[in-house]
């Protein structure tokens, strides 16, 4: 009786603990065994990839798999859908806990975050120096996002080249054509916009209040950045930035640009026809084309340039992403896969362009006939070869490890300037916020 009571006590103590430990241990073991951490140079002809959009980058991966299988029939690609914010959280957590064995072979990364991750966590990446990828076949400004200390860490994927997309039917009502909006300055754009607003009641542009997207696009179009090449913030005494913010403020105050609070509201202003144009990365065409009733009523041209700023151009970019090979990868296979698909297959880009609107950064792709085909949605214009032409002229943008801090601080400054703060002192404050973050 006594012994059995004691046995029960001991079991009561040990069982739950044992079960709990077994559960934890088992979980860990399973993870390394199965899909989660499928990387590693095990030579089994399989690559695991993290990407986030089934209609876009995941679809592109599946097509790339088919292309690569033609010469490597045993090859399989295991794609895991992971939203971008989770990719960032996972990478940070794995790096911080030094569990790099859980990494996939390849992951997709936002261009804006690329340098931050390489500089903070170099042990997450394998560089591409020994690969067959010819980086001269990509626009310099795009390769710059994933280059740290002259070493390439990423193969550029989607194109963030900025365009002006306009509703030709609305312009016609006001007596204008797309040509009136091509190769113009922002001052001219505001004048035209005020006239369109007066005649049709429709503003031209829209965007998220407090977002730094628009001013930063303007900034890059003049070849300027929030940081210099050494990564020091250049937010104060930055004439291009002051001009960009001033232009933005005049756009909003004239009523030509309307501010909304969320991304969904912004997309709605386009598909509902609240606004008659947008200046945004070329990927916005995907959302524009979802409004089928507007087919044939859109046209694409280059973006306005800043007035009175040295080095101003009609070309800039927003967003975009690149493929990175992890430190846990079957590096040889991963490099060969990327070199023969995203950095070497015109066939791949010809497939994914019409169905997913995935525009190549890889310059040779733009020579194919698919890129030159007239697009009915855009009034029969060959918009894709046009945009690839823009892409080559986009000035580079310095990002560095503190790019998110820089953009956020500038967003705060813009909100304050719109509420009446003095631009120079608001930007000085933004600079000190970034310097504070850097001074850890």
């Amino acid at each position, binding site marked *: 009786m006594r012994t059995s009571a004691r046995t029960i006590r001991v079991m009561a103590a040990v069982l739950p603990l044992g079960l709990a430990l077994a559960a934890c241990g088992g979980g860990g073991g399973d993870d390394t065994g199965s899909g989660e951490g499928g990387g590693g140079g095990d030579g089994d002809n399989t690559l695991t990839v993290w990407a986030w959009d089934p209609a876009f980058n995941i679809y592109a991966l599946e097509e790339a798999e088919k292309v690569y299988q033609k010469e490597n029939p045993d090859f399989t690609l295991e794609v895991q859908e992971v939203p971008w914010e989770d990719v960032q959280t996972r990478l940070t957590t794995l790096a911080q806990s030094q569990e790099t064995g859980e990494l996939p072979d390849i992951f997709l990364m936002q261009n804006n975050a690329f340098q931050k991750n390489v*500089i903070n966590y170099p042990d997450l990446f394998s560089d591409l120096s020994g690969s067959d990828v010819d980086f001269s076949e990509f626009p310099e400004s795009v390769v710059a996002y994933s280059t740290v200390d002259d070493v390439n860490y990423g193969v550029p994927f989607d194109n963030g080249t900025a365009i002006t997309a306009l509703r030709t039917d609305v312009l016609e009502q006001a007596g204008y054509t797309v040509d009136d909006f091509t190769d113009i300055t922002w001052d001219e754009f505001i004048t035209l916009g005020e006239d369109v607003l007066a005649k049709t009641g429709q503003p031209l542009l829209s965007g998220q*209040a*407090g977002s730094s997207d628009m001013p930063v696009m303007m900034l890059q179009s003049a070849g300027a950045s929030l940081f210099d090449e050494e990564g020091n913030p250049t937010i104060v005494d930055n004439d291009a930035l002051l001009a960009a913010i001033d232009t933005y403020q005049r756009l909003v105050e004239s009523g030509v640009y309307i501010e*909304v609070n969320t991304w969904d509201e912004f997309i709605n202003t386009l598909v509902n026809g609240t606004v008659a144009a947008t200046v945004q990365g070329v990927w916005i065409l995907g959302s524009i084309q979802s409004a089928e009733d507007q087919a044939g009523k859109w046209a694409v041209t280059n973006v306005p340039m800043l007035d009175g700023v040295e080095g101003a151009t009609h070309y800039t970019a927003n967003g975009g992403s690149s493929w990175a090979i992890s430190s846990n990868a079957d590096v040889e296979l991963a490099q060969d896969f990327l070199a023969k698909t995203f950095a070497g297959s015109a066939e791949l880009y010809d497939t994914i362009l019409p169905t997913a609107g995935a525009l190549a950064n890889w310059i040779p792709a733009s020579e194919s006939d698919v890129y030159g085909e007239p697009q009915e949605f855009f009034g029969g214009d060959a918009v894709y070869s046009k945009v690839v032409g823009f892409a080559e002229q986009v000035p580079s943008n310095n990002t560095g490890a*503190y790019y998110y801090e820089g953009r*956020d601080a500038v967003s705060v400054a813009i909100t304050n300037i719109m509420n009446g703060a003095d631009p120079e002192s608001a930007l000085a404050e933004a600079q000190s*916020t970034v310097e*504070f973050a850097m001074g*850890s």
Partner: protein
Amino acid sequence: MARPTATAQRSVPGDAPVAGTVPAPLAPRPKISRLERRKSLTGWVFLLPASLLILWLSFWPMIQAAILSLQTGRGTRLSFAEPLWSNYTRLLEDETFKLTLQNTFLYLIIQVPLMLIMALVLANLLNNPNLRYKSLWRTAIFLPSAVGLVSYALVFRTMFANDGLVNDLLQGMGFIDSPVNWLGETGTARFVLVLGLLWRWTGYNMIFYLAALQTIDRSTIEAAKIDGASSAKAFWYVTVPQLKPMILLTAIMSTNGTLQLFDESYALTAGGPANTSMTISHYLYMVSFRNSPNFGYASAISYVILIIVAALAVVQLKVGDKRD
């Protein structure tokens, strides 16, 4: 430790059922002492697994975070700061941290008392024995607590959009001429956030009060009424004092919850405009995962939250708990 167990087991049915009565010893002391020691040992054995897990999964990371908060560096290349407390002194110069701390306290001071008073009043109304469809009302008020934090935040964001439901309703009824930019102005953005919190959490706290009200003897309230007290006075002087332990519990839980507020700030207002609705926990997330990661500094921020929560809990215990 073992005394209540022993008492409960030995109290004979039909005996005086008042809790806490120590039964008369049935046997000589040494024998009880051994029995009690065995029972005590049993209790500890049952506690052991949970305690070990808590130590390992909760306290050990807290100690690690404390060590981390004294370190600085880039990514994983961390080293001890010079001087050790530099992450903490750095907080004093961080304007964003000060702003988020101020925002969080604003939510705390406005939302927690308002919510607890509303919960108390609602619980009292729903405890009325003559009320019809009682469970329907209770369910309706409690239901928001079953909604996911992010999903309700997104619904609120849609409702308070410039062309959202709230603006449409207000315009339709003629209260406003042009849409209010709810999430675009500091004051209204904070208001919407507090409104969301009230909607989400009032029912949750109400359930605690309802449960506590069941333990209150109705005769105490009836006695007060017979003595001529109005309903309000009976509520304030008879019911509320008896709910005091529960009020204390909900106050501490709500304070703790509000100081660690994240989802609403992240999903509903995204911290905007210009960070004026961002909470400390949201800032903590930004420092760790969105910005160039600075885990030493982030740990220091989390320790400041811990210290504030602990300090406020101690104050509330001192002020609220007059039991002897």
